[in-house]
């Protein structure tokens, strides 16, 4: 038992730097470390130029997509909206943390973008995407 404990103790420093340098994937890792902050809008710029799609997507060069991230803890920032349901859900969550989840940090206002791209070698399409840019976030 003592040897086992020593082995574990020795191994610990080796694993710590790797863990501390870990940065979660913004799309797939829901337990991202920045989500511990309160619900707010985060910057996500999608650059068609950096993706080397500019010979295909004529305009724009990219767009500010943004996304919502963070926890819905009250009181929220003054600018942050929360639905009545989110407030009630928070209270119920505090009473039953294991059964009732917290409200979700999600977009409250979205705006469109237009994208101009080649369909094939000659035909072109200009398409309006209605809910592409997050303008504000809130708790639902």
């Amino acid at each position, binding site marked *: 038992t003592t040897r086992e404990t020593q082995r574990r103790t020795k191994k610990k420093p080796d694993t710590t730097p790797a863990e501390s340098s870990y940065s979660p994937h913004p799309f797939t890792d829901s337990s991202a470390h920045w989500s511990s902050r309160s619900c707010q809008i985060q910057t996500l710029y999608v650059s068609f130029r950096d993706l080397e799609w500019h010979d295909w997507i004529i305009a724009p060069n990219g767009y500010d997509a943004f996304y919502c991230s963070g926890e819905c803890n009250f009181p929220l920032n003054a600018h942050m909206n929360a639905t009545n349901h989110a407030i009630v859900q928070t209270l119920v969550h505090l009473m039953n943390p294991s059964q009732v989840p917290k409200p979700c940090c999600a977009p409250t206002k979205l705006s469109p973008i237009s994208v101009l791209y080649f*369909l094939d*070698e000659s035909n072109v399409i*200009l*398409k*309006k*995407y209605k809910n592409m840019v997050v303008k504000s976030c809130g708790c639902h």
Partner: protein
Amino acid sequence: GLYVDNGVDRTEMARALTSSERREVEHEILSLLGLPNRPPRAPPGSAAPQFLLDVYKSLLDAPRDDLNLSGRDLSAINESDVIMSFASRSEAHQSGLRHERGRRLWFDVSEVPIGERIVSAELRLFQSESTTPQRATVSVYQLVADGTREKALMLVDSAAAGPTGGWLVLNVTGPLNSWVAFPDSNLGLYLSVHLPDKPAHEIHPEDIGIVISKGSDASRQPFMVAFFQSSGHRTTHSR
């Protein structure tokens, strides 16, 4: 890369994405935009992309004077969810025509999104400044099968062409509606030009400076543009 706020009003790159993560993000964006495949590289400088680029610029906030939209009603552009341009493929389907002086235009409309309502469609023809100052009537006909090997002509729209040149715009909403509803009925359009003093005598479109041939300036070749409104029913492509 993956950028995070460092807490003192500065954004720093935490780490670069791996190639597999980058591919995954690319696929996410493609899926979000509804683009299943990257098309082959397009020839630069053709007229249709330039027209839609002008439309795109008109949708941006700042008003611009350098846009060549030929007096188009901008409210119609703002109301459209999808605007598509179609380059003329006049080399396709050339057989079965008795008319020799007119020109036939054919457009591949198979990529028209399903479930979108067609608001309008325009045929845009460029007329170079003519050396012979004469007026003419440009008519566009829809080619329809009449059950025999010959094809019938159905008048769609006409426009007056003058010696000053520029873009001629003809309404071809009807033919596009029928081509989308019945793809096999797409036999193309027939372009006919008459002088006002000789209505029975048909002349070549090139005689009054209308650009038709493939070899000429790509930015002035004929194309069709169609305006669509979303029906609300979304079709998604599988990845």
